[in-house]
């Protein structure tokens, strides 16, 4: 995981002496002590301008993100030689388990990546540093962010996360497959009914299901609710009712009956959160429901050409979402230095050029323009084009950050929606269950 740690072990000289029994015993006794010290170490100096500072930073992602982030952080160290980084990263799955465990042990990283699944939880528990004073005194600049993106980092009126990327819902389809069977591509703005008819037609012609069933995918439900004048949340309340959910589950049950979606087992496979399991890249369905910034990563997992569009229905229901944030640990003894790094990653043009659109479009609009002009990766280009086009269609209001318990709401939706697709529950019963479960998850009475 930590490449520096890995290389360090390789460089160890091999001992050539034969230790005596007593030495071995001493070593055995000393081992736990040494490990203990290592675990407790890492305390550093304060945040003075020339004092040596080591900042710990933790994110999830793939190798490509690690390479880019390494480069950007190296640039920071080059500009501020006294600041070095202890970098840790890992795959998406298990990231929050690790972060929670680190926090529980009082060893939360100085800077950590977080997204809207968890930011309310961490902010309300007081784990994240309130960045509002820094943005007021100019040490942290969010003035070049779009208004919606800045506000999407606020919980209870406090700025707790700095968006490091912007994305929006994206429907990805396998263009190669459609071309092979001379099928038309879906288009932004087509109605849900038209989309389902289109997907059923794809299934009939290509023998590959037209679309993943999105009934368990919360962001699809969210867009659909907003198109119907509802929302997923209103503050710390849910903003939909049983009849909405019944309609939603029924919509996809009918779509399944028309042959637009795969079998329940395949749907379940596609409900995995990892990019490589998405049905559009495993070839088990023609379309998948993802976020626009996942395009390049999806492309790495398939030979097909991929197309990208908005979710069906009126695209004005979509919004500029912070794909993820960087937050600073409130208990960090090196807060000021950490905030400066976050500010650098979000606003510095050179850092922006390095990071590209891996985490989403650069949050700073000036940096974004510059990146758009220089980006060469065709998939990133496509992401930028589609997202900019969509941005012109976004409605005036964007939702606020989901409340604490959102992760649980997501997993309850998967459980119940799959129950409906497997035929274990009727849409009615599923809707009732989900409303109850969602209320319980966010603590709404």
């Amino acid at each position, binding site marked *: 995981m930590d490449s520096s740690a890995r290389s360090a072990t390789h460089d160890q000289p091999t001992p050539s002496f034969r230790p005596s029994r007593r030495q071995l015993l001493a070593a055995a006794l000393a081992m736990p002590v040494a490990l203990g010290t290592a675990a407790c170490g890492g305390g550093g100096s304060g945040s003075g301008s020339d004092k040596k500072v080591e900042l710990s930073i933790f994110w999830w992602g793939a190798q490509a993100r690690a390479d880019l982030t390494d480069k950007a952080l190296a640039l920071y160290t080059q500009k501020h030689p006294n600041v070095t980084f202890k970098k840790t990263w890992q795959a998406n799955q298990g990231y929050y388990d690790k972060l929670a*465990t680190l926090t529980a042990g009082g060893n939360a990283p100085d800077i950590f990546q977080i997204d809207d699944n968890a930011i309310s*939880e961490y902010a309300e*528990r*007081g*784990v994240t540093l309130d960045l509002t004073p820094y943005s007021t005194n100019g040490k942290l600049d969010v003035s070049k962010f779009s208004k919606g993106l800045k506000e999407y980092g606020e919980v209870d009126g406090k700025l707790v996360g700095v968006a490091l990327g912007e994305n929006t819902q994206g429907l990805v389809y396998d263009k190669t497959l459609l071309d092979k069977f001379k099928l038309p591509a879906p288009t932004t703005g087509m109605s849900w009914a038209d989309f389902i008819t289109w997907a059923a037609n794809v299934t009939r012609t290509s023998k590959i299901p037209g679309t993943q069933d999105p009934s368990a995918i919360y962001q699809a439900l969210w867009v659909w609710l907003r198109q119907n004048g509802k929302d997923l949340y209103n503050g710390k309340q849910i903003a939909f009712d049983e009849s909405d959910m019944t309609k939603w589950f029924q919509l996809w049950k009918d779509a399944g009956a028309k042959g637009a979606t795969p079998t329940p*087992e*395949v749907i379940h496979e596609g409900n995995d959160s990892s990019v490589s399991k998405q049905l559009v890249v495993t070839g088990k369905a023609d379309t998948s429901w993802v976020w626009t910034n996942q395009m390049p990563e999806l492309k790495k997992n398939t030979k097909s050409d991929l197309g990208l569009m908005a979710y069906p229905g009126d695209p004005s229901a979509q919004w500029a979402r912070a794909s993820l944030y960087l937050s600073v640990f409130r208990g960090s003894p090196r807060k000021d230095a950490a905030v400066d790094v976050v500010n650098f990653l979000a606003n510095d043009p050179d850092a922006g050029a390095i990071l590209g659109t891996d985490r989403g479009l650069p949050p700073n609009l000036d940096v974004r323009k510059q990146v758009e002009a220089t980006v060469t990766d065709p998939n990133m280009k496509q992401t930028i084009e589609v997202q900019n086009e969509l941005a012109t269609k976004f409605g005036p209001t964007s939702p606020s950050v989901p409340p604490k318990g959102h992760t649980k709401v997501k997993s309850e939706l998967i*459980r119940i929606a799959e129950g409906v697709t497997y035929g274990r529950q009727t849409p009615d019963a599923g809707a009732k269950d989900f409303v109850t479960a969602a209320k319980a998850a966010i603590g709404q009475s």
Partner: protein
Amino acid sequence: MTMAQMPVRPTEPVPPVPAAHRRGRVARRRRREDLAGYLFLSPWLLGLLGITAIPMLLSLYLSFTDYSPLIPVTESNWVGLENYRRMFTADPSYWHAVRVTVIFAVIAVPLKLAAALGVAMLLNKTMRGIALFRGLFYLPSLLGGSVALAIVWRGMFSGDGAFNAFLSFFGLTGKAWINDPTWALPTLMLLAIWQFGAPMVIFLAGLKQVPTELYEASSVDGAGAWRKFFHITLPLLSPVIFFNLVLETIHGFQGFTSAFVISNGTGGPVDSTLMYTLHLYKAGFVDLNMGYASAMAWVFLLVVGLITVVLFSTGRFWVHYSDSEVR
């Protein structure tokens, strides 16, 4: 190990020295040996206290609070029996998890024991290369609770996995077993049953203890294989069966790794593999309700303890110790 099993000091021939002097030296040596004993035990003792006993007591306290890993323990609030109330009355998934776990244990444990006994009896024969076979059959258990094995299992029983390829030889079409709410749990059971090596080795040792004269005598009396099995093997093996039953029951209730890996940590599809421990893990580490998770852990401990006590109390009726006639 209990104190009773501590090694007994052999009575050595003592050189003829004045009695008082001798006693002093012996006592000193004993003290030194005791000290050495505790020193050798110390890693284990420290581990028991630091890694098991203290955290356990702490979790008992936490089970009465709303502790979340994101806040210091000192900032958590005392909520009394609220966690326990919620568990029993307001968490439908809890009872679902209990059901899944009981079904798993009730089916997988007896089948695993039967498989272990059956293979042990086969391996009790004398033939060339028997040691190799014993080793091979024990192998899956060495990989035991390992994550790697569960990943292999996931690959084998997925839609395009090896098992379906095997079925297609016979013209059968399989399904994505681990993605089907009906079949996911049986797939986990199969994995558990397949890892029968540990009880098998114990059964094998038990079978070796059965005196061959008894079989010979019964052959003379005209007993068939079944009769021998039910009237000689089973009764004489009953202490070993009992031991394995207790251990495997506890083990069965604790199943976590395979369910976690195969369902990707979700307990899905549709909660069909939501084992008790997995629900507990999700409550603590995903939903961050560590107080609630602690309460679940304590109820679990008590229930598994209770089941063990019940097993022990039934043992009186069917476990025969060979020395029982003497008593």
